């Protein structure tokens, strides 16, 4: 019995090592807080481990975890309301990396602030998380075509408002 648990923990450890940075960054750019992002990633991994089926039955662990993180971030935003923007200097952060990342978070939120939430999310999945349309569609539970059209609308709007320059490609 103990060995089974131990093996599962070893397996989970390697999954954490492989995906933790991407998942943490994903959560951070949704909630804008290191602390909250850490809590969310932690909870998702715990639930992933506690669900006996997931370790053996999930085919694409990365997508499964990203989807879980996306849902957890949405829950968090639902409970805590829209993220309030504050001046980076007012934020008490632990180190330079956190400060730069907070500044980036604020900059990107500002850039996407005029987009409807669903279009903004598609843009983030592509540019912030580096996911392709197929992966984005899987995470948002939508067709690839819907993702593509939201992407086009969003990019048009960003160009019109002069927030981005240059050509964009799907």
């Amino acid at each position, binding site marked *: 019995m*103990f060995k089974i648990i131990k093996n599962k923990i070893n397996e989970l450890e390697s999954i*954490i090592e492989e995906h933790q940075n991407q998942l*943490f960054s994903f959560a951070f750019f949704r909630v804008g807080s290191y602390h909250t992002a850490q809590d969310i990633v932690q909870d998702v991994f*715990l639930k992933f481990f506690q669900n006996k089926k997931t370790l053996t039955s999930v085919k694409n662990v990365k997508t499964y975890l990203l989807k879980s993180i996306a849902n957890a971030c949405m829950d968090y935003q639902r409970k805590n309301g829209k993220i309030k923007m504050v001046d980076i200097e007012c934020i008490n952060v632990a180190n330079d990396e956190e400060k730069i990342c907070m500044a980036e978070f604020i900059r990107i939120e500002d850039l996407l602030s005029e987009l409807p939430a669903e279009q903004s999310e598609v843009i983030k999945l592509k540019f912030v998380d580096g996911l392709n349309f197929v992966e984005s569609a899987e995470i948002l539970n939508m067709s690839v075509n819907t993702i593509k059209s939201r992407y086009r609308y969003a990019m048009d709007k960003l160009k019109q408002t002069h927030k981005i320059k240059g050509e964009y490609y799907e």
Partner: protein
Amino acid sequence: MNEITPKMKPSAPLSLKKNIINKIKMEKNKMKTLMIKRLLATAASLAALLTVPFVFTANNEAKAAIRFLGKSINKSDNLKTMEVKFLMQTTPNENFDAIRDDGNMLEHTFTISFENPHIWRLEKSGRTSLFDAVNSYSWLKQLGIGMMAPGIAEFFGDFEKFLDPQNLLRHEQQLAKNDGSEIAMQETGSQIILTIKSKAKGDFTNDYLKNSSIMASDNKRIYTFDKETKLLQAMLVQILYKNEYHTVFETTSILYNIPVDREKLTERPVNKNGQRCMTHQIIRL
């Protein structure tokens, strides 16, 4: 599209993985704590379970008593500490569950702190086993060496049945179904006494292993618990040898909610030279 791409992405904090793994271990241990806590009402639950066959023929009064006993299982959830002192016929260095006919009735102390994280220690003159919420250790005091295993290891051997009520209950349930077990429940003014007589379990074709442990013996187990507090008060185990019952396990005291120094509970024991056992002498299992 550089404008939308972050110039820097945050890395997961170094503590993230450690926190997750620790939490998982804690969860497992918490589950174990609950199981162990329920040991304290084992007698009650045993009575409730073991008298199930009796229910079918018993009167309503007996059924009410069983219901009452069943409720008592939850009583142990509020306990903070427990200390059980018992005598067992064995030798100082032997595994905790082994009965030795060349042994004496040696004093053992089993102490649990149920505060989160729960920890416990089982000790006799030659051996100490403890669980410090992360690892289990079993120290051979004479040699000053010990074994360590992550999580709750099986250092208690068969004796763990008595520490883990779920195992015990499952075991007792099996016995209840077995025609060879005799179960009797006696109610006095302030106590409920449950007596279970069982046949030896195992393959004893050559009789070598018979009477080597409680379960490998024809045995009688007597649980006494307080009718009012519903907590276990005493436990006695006797094995049948040459047509006579001999006591091999007997509690001398069971105390609840006494002050327990948690640091001392997980302290490494002192070896025969009066020195504390060294961690580098640990054999990792």
